[in-house]
């Protein structure tokens, strides 16, 4: 192409338009404003939060990464999984076991990647012919087998007592230090956010949406259904695996409870409540499942979380089909249409 910059320009616009939904109407000024606000928020959090809350926010980042993984699998590809916390746990236990044996961090990351790809594929393959609740049951089985292994193999995993994890330490920076934990977790979450946003601009992402909405139409377009589902499972496992790996170092402790059926269900809640198919939704969902229990505990009512959490889920599901993110983008759209008079009325054809 001779006019490369120009082509790039239109390409970016096309890709943006192709994303549709929440982002297509955003102007550059909005983007800039958001970036400035975000930077301000991060600085304020970094400077203003106590050590305890820095680690909590670090956990928000890591749960957000894992939620993005489940969003790819469930929110975008429509595959219901009840074992997402198991993928998270695999990563966490790699950190716990590998650091106990003095394996280098680089090699650990490679191991996490390898295990995530294998685990994702292992869960995906038998589920290719299943969908809905039957698929969920098979994924549940995977999660329960892992739980059983973690609890019974006491000599390897420490059993239900769990294991302590020595903080990650590179070049004098130590994740036992809350500010470091915060920055490293935020960095991983930003990478995940960029990659997930990019997925929305690719054919790989559109294949997943097509598989979710109509397998018949997807195959009529020439999309390889099994391949697309396996890719979604593997991506979900990679996101959760890396998040879990860092989680072990940030929290300094792993135990089977953190990766059982209930946390898996909470990840689903995060996807649905936050808003499926959007990165903003994963952030809101990740923040919710980490912060809500904390806030209820502060209010002196830790048990209310489960009850009110369920009620909130029902309310959001009824009032905001796109989750919290969908509600926000609807408000934003309304605000924009007040500013700029958009061509009104149905276009007919």
């Amino acid at each position, binding site marked *: 192409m001779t006019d490369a910059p120009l*082509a*790039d320009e*239109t*390409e970016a616009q*096309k*890709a943006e*338009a*192709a*994303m*549709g*939904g929440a982002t*297509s*109407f955003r102007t550059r000024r909005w983007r800039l404003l958001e970036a400035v606000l975000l930077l301000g928020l991060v600085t304020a959090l970094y400077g203003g939060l106590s050590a305890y809350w820095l680690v909590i926010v670090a956990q928000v980042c890591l749960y957000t990464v894992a939620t993005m993984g489940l969003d790819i699998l469930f929110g975008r590809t429509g595959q219901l999984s009840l074992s997402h916390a198991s993928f998270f746990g695999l990563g966490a236990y790699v950190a716990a076991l590998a650091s106990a044996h003095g394996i280098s961090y680089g090699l650990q990351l490679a191991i996490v990647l390898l295990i995530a790809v294998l685990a994702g594929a292992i869960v995906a393959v038998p589920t290719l012919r299943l969908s809905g609740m039957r698929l969920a049951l098979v994924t549940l089985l995977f999660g329960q087998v892992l739980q059983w292994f973690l609890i019974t193999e006491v000599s390897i995993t420490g059993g239900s007592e769990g294991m302590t994890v020595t903080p990650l330490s590179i070049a004098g920076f130590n994740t036992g230090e809350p500010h470091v934990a915060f920055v490293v977790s935020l960095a991983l979450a930003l990478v995940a956010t960029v*990659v997930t946003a*990019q*997925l929305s*601009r*690719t*054919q*790989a992402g*559109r*294949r997943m*949406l*097509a598989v*979710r*909405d*109509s397998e*018949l*139409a*997807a*195959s*009529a*377009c*020439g*999309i*390889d259904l099994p391949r697309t589902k396996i*890719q979604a499972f593997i*991506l979900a496992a990679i996101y959760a695996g890396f998040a879990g790996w860092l989680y072990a170092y940030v929290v300094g402790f792993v135990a089977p409870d953190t990766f059982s059926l209930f946390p898996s269900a909470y990840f689903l809640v995060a996807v649905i409540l936050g808003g499926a*198919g959007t990165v903003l939704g994963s952030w809101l969902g990740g923040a919710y499942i980490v912060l809500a229990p904390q806030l209820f505990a502060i209010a002196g009512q830790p048990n209310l979380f489960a009850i009110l959490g369920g009620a909130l889920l029902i309310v959001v599901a009824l009032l905001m089909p*796109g989750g919290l993110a969908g509600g926000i983008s609807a408000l934003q759209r309304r605000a924009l249409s007040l500013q700029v008079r958009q061509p009104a009325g*149905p*276009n*007919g*054809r």
Partner: protein
Amino acid sequence: MDANVNTVNAGRLELRAVSVRYGALTALEEVSIDFPTGVICGLIGPNGAGKTTLLNAVSGFTQVSAGSIVVGDVDIARFDIRERVALGVVRGFQTPRLLEQETVRTNVAVGCEPLGHPSVVVQLANLPAQRRAEARDALYVDEALGLLDLQEVASRRVDQLPFATRRLVEVARVLVARPRIVLLDEPAAGLDADDRDALATVIRRVHDERAMTVVIVEHNVEFVRLLCQHVVALDYGRVISRGDADAVLADEAVRLAYFGVSHNVAS
């Protein structure tokens, strides 16, 4: 850019003694049709005549029990759906099956699948190969949206659009990768007379701009007359008449099978 379709006669579609049986039921009985290349061809017949079965057999959604389906110079009767799509054989559905919560543009872009894309890792890393593929897809999508007058609604969510527009979105998705053989299953179903005429105009316009063979299953005689140069009539899984649209629609056997009575539909 048409990477997957190199065969000179790619638009040629011929069925040779194709039979489809479901247990004891014979849906198609040794059907042989040489569809005229590059022509809009209507496939008519009463309910249960085997029209949709024929469409399913050609597109790979139904396995044939016997016979061959030749596209270009290749017998595709044993190919899977993806291999047929890659050869430029693409179908639509009787009810539009769309990604309801996505935009028109995203819906049409899904149809770019047969154009070929780099691996998922390359796509996620947004490497140059991915950027080229995405830019190419955008060009194809723009062209399809332009052909079907959908540019104005490109960024709208599909579930906010009227039925007739949704129908066009599906046709755009079928056409976007420039297939050589297009199979449409009752595209006018559920449309009022105005929308039907508009759809016929659009399909004709696209057909005139591109070299492609179009096979349309259709109940509506007006629509067939408006659009199809060639008509094949099926009944009980067999071809009972074929030829010029007017001649077939006037055929006594067709009128008997199709309408049960022998009134003159050609007038």
